[in-house]
């Protein structure tokens, strides 16, 4: 199990790094998929089978495909030669007319800004330091069963922790209100998407009824 865990973790990390440094958006997305699969494996190794399956179904299955559709619909070729932002009328916008200079090869990988990389690595180092300093009880599975943290009531043994029943218990017993608010949130998001998308079709179809009545 440990071997599988380490393998999945490495796959997830490599996928994540590739996702960030790829210049081509489609390759980036495929790396993200690999990373999702690795994360699902990590969840599976931690006995969170339900989370692992949801990860595959929702992230790898639905969200990545959604990304793919968006990328396919937009013209990704222009992204390569988008140029640097320029300032127009006190706003920074991307220059759509910029072309890569003839003869220069567009690099396949992009490396992050050194300063940003330094800050990120610093934060990572601080977090790792803190994780190794965490009390013993956080490092092992045992005390979770006896009543610390999420499982403080002793109701969720580790084996059941990530199973469907464990998650159901947590959702509907400890956080029922959050569940309700999530439904309102999704309602707001769907409604907002419809409102913002509706206006284009409304403008496009507005003249049509008049034409139809004339024909009759």
């Amino acid at each position, binding site marked *: 199990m440990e071997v599988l865990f380490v393998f999945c973790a490495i796959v997830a990390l490599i996928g994540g790094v590739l996702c960030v440094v790829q210049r081509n958006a489609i390759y980036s997305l495929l790396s993200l998929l690999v990373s999702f699969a690795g994360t699902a494996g990590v969840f599976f190794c931690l006995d969170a089978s339900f989370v692992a399956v949801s990860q595959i179904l929702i992230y790898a299955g639905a969200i990545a495909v959604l990304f793919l559709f968006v990328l396919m619909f937009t013209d990704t070729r222009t992204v390569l030669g988008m140029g640097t932002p320029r300032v127009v009328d006190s*706003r920074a916008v991307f220059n759509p007319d910029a072309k890569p200079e003839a003869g220069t090869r567009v690099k396949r990988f992009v490396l992050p800004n050194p300063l940003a990389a330094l800050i990120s690595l610093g*934060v990572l180092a*601080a*977090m790792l*330091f*803190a*994780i190794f*300093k*965490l*009390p013993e009880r*956080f490092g092992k599975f045992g005390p979770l*069963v006896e009543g*610390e*943290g*999420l499982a*403080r*009531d*002793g*109701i*969720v*043994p580790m*084996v*059941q922790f990530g199973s469907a*029943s*464990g998650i159901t*218990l947590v959702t509907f*017993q*400890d*956080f*029922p*209100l*959050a569940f309700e*608010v*999530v439904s*309102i*949130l999704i*309602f*707001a*998001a769907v*409604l*907002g998407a419809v*409102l*913002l998308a509706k*206006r*284009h079709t*409304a*403008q496009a179809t507005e003249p049509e009824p008049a034409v139809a009545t004339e024909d009759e």
Partner: protein
Amino acid sequence: MFWGYDIFLPVVWLLLAAGIILLIDLFSDEPDKVQMPLFFTAIGGALLSFVSLNPYWNAPPVQPHFNAVQVDQFSAYLMAAILVGTAISMFASLSYVRRIGVSLADFLITLLLAASGMLLLTVSNDLIMLFLSIELLSFSVYVLTGLNSRSSRSAEGAMKYFIMGGLATGFMVMGMGAIYAVTGEVGLREIGRRLFALFAQPDGSEIMAVLGMGAVLISFAFKVGAVPFHSWVPDAYEGAPTTVTGFMAVAVKAAAFGALIRLAIVAFPDNAGVQGFTGDFGWASWALWALSAMSMVLGNWFAISQRNVKRMLAYSSIAHSGYLLMGIASAGASTEAYAAILFYLLAYTLMTSGAFAMLVYASSGGKDIESVDDLRGLAWKKPAVGIGMAIFMFSLAGIPLTGGFMGKYFLFSQAIDAGGRFMWLAILGICTSIVGSFYYLRVVAVTYFREPDDRPIHGRDDWGIKFALSLTVLGTVYLGISPTWAYNAAREGVAQLQQSAVVVVEAPRKAPPALVEKP
């Protein structure tokens, strides 16, 4: 009544109104005939919500059995301010939104959803509810910003706001994850207890808590538009329909500062027992100090050079975020800075939504007010409106006899009380607000001392906006002349919240259900 679930009534009324509006809009064949029913449904929802805050004045805090929210006088105060801002925005939009080509029903539903997210944010008592309600309000406000389909600036503003807001959300989730990792709790009070114990006996893992708190602070700085996290503010404020801009400026700020104060009091108490960013969290106080100083200086500085009124008010809102952050930074060392922030938020709600309603009033045809010159001679076309504009601008600049002056007075005097570096912050605040009064007074000067043009004024026969303006003018003047009542209510609310954070009550352990067998 309602088995203890009546604490959700303020939110439920808003959601109910949104649902009814959705159904009326869906089943009506003639949209023009249902405008008034739609409008009064929304106003009725806000009014009922306001009335259902009644049990929480001068009453002990109420918590349902699952501990995710806490309703107390502190949140009731903020909810009242948010509902007032929402109602003013509705009145001001009554005919404005249709004129710019937005359906009233769409606008009202999104506004009500945003308001319900804000109300939830002020009562959230655990990290999950905090995150969800911030997302609910942000999604709705992104949509509101982009509602104006005729304007490409509206789409641009919405897009920028969405992307920066998404980044802020990332910071917030990251920070909450770190805090959860180090405390193992999501409830704010439990987190406070764990952090208290952790900082009493540091073992090295508190770095994680510090990183988490830093990330959460950054995300709140994004939400309130503090420098250097302000880049979305001018574009989003300029692009959004004017009444939405007013709503964004006041209600989002009130909700975000409410949540930040609750976090500071309940979740991050330091080891000296002082609630606020001192002692162990002194670094946070320094960070807020820097945010506040930069926001005050740069916000006012950029506002001076703006010719566009909405962009000017956007930068002025950044500056006001700076004044409010000064209160949060100095709260650990002073006694009543939180109450001063609450009072300032109430005064700010009235004067800023009034100022934006004034821009709607003075606009003509389907065209928004753009440059300051569009306001020329307004005071001679409509003397009463000129006086109202002057009152809002005086209040924003902080000139006596207005709510804005009293708010600044309370905030600055608390910071001076705190002494040390906060006194210098207060001095900086006074200097910058003197500089800032230049661009507010320029608007007044343009309305009085320039020749009026013959453009028609939109608000002449719009009773909704007249009502909104009267309400805000009266409120601003009232808070300036007699601030005691509102200030005392704020003080009691904060005291109550502090009380509920100090008394540490162990939640009774639930009996394990029979469903899961123990190993």
